[in-house]
């Protein structure tokens, strides 16, 4: 285990240092993050980074493999384009969690802002507290699990993927709410157990695309007709 004091380090140098220790098999404890932006960008391999405080925007962006535990808050765009690994936030997150994420898992134990999983392509996002509006907007694939109150326009224009939530919020356009299968409930229950979350899933619903996306007509050039 190694401790890094982030106080006077610029994000580029800090991330290089974290990567160096992770690559040598060390668990990294980060002190004094002071809500700095761009912490943990493009970390790869395996290992664990424990951040003792809050981080700013873009934490864990493009990450591929490691686990980040943030003991405070985090800002906008957590796990932007993340490939694999896990990010756990013990307090609140800002808006736009996991935009365009491809894989991996994000767990927010507090509340989250709007537009989580925007354009998400894969992976899992779990929000234990309240979630803002437009969750899963234009998502393509992956799974979102929302365990508390959720803002309106859920799943607006989603193309694929699944959003599990309890009834209440207004749905976005081109989506529908259906009953999840027994297998899906078991899958979510297992996943929550792994993440250490206890929650009664009675009444859980699933939001999926309504399948009414615009069908584009591809015009053939004249000579190909």
């Amino acid at each position, binding site marked *: 285990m190694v401790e890094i004091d982030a106080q006077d380090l610029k994000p580029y140098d800090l991330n290089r240092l974290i990567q160096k220790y992770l690559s040598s098999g060390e668990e990294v404890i980060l002190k*004094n993050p*002071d*809500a*700095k*932006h761009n912490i943990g960008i493009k970390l790869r391999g395996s290992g664990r980074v424990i951040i003792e*405080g*809050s981080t*700013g*925007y873009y934490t864990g962006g493009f990450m591929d493999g490691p686990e980040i535990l943030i003991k*405070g*808050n985090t*800002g*906008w765009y957590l796990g932007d384009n993340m490939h694999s690994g896990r990010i756990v936030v013990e*307090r*609140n997150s*800002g*808006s736009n969690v996991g935009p365009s994420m491809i894989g991996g898992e994000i767990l927010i134990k507090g*509340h989250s*802002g*709007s537009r989580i999983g925007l354009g998400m392509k894969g992976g899992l996002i779990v929000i234990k507290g309240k979630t*803002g*509006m437009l969750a899963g907007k234009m998502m393509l694939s992956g799974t979102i699990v929302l365990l508390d109150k959720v*803002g309106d326009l859920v799943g607006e224009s989603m193309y694929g993927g699944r959003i599990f939530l309890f009834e209440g919020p207004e749905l976005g356009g081109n989506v529908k709410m259906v009953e999840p299968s027994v297998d899906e409930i078991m899958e979510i229950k297992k996943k929550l157990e792994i993440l250490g979350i206890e929650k009664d899933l009675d009444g859980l619903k699933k939001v999926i695309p309504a399948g009414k996306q615009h069908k584009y007509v591809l015009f053939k050039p004249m000579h190909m007709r």
Partner: protein
Amino acid sequence: MCGIAGLILKSGSSNIGQDIINMLDKMVHRGEDSTGFAVYENNEVCEVRVNCSTEKDVETLRHIIEQFGSIDDERVLRSRVGSYLVWADVTVKYEELPVLYRAIDKVPTLCVHSAGKWLRILKDMGSAKNLMDHYTDVEFDGYQGIGHVRLATESVENINFAHPFSTYYLPELAIAHNGQLTNYFNLRRKMERKGVTFKTFNDSEIIAHYIGYHMVEDGWSFEETLEKSIDEFDGVFTYTASLPDKIGVVRDRLGIKPLYIHENDQYVLFGTEQVCFSPLIHESYSEEMDPGSVIVWSR
């Protein structure tokens, strides 16, 4: 981009201007075209702060003020762009302050930055650090204040287009805004038909006039005006507005522009990014403001 910040002390006062500048310095990446802040303090004296393009304009300003009262003390500073910032302690009838404000602003080469007993505004081109380096002997004691870093997108880079903005309708009001008001020109024409005059083409200026106009002419409360602005303004916006006894924050319904709030026993902090709290509090647990909401703190 752009960034806003605010600090409200729950008791006493301190060099709050320096605190706000330090907060703004942490958000320099959100814009360094201009930086400014407004501080409120319990002053006995009314101060008028005007940006004069040339030295001759300083004389013009003195002449205008003397038509309303007298100048008791005066300080002339050079801005970072070479213009003359006149900070004049004046003796005028307090109720005539809006008329004086408007008379000064009618001169194209003069621009009032602030006028009031409580309110003091400093704004200039460049980053927070540029301001700190330039205005080395200026102290801004106060009990509350707001600040702004600007990335000019909708209008020119100019010292008078920097935030915070004030208004002759309600000279003790200051606003700072992050966002774009997409119905600015329609709203401006509507307000101009009612007799409101504008000094700049910065869409944010309209927020100050909107609040001032409706509070003075229509008798709306501060809270009511901020609530109604969410319906009236179109676009993406988060703004803060301040009076001597209140500070409010407003966020549009889509919540595209962020705002974080941290409150403890000693003070309230708010800002576009949590990182701006770090000069004052080592580790803060802030909440993101809900979209489409208004929060007002009163003294």
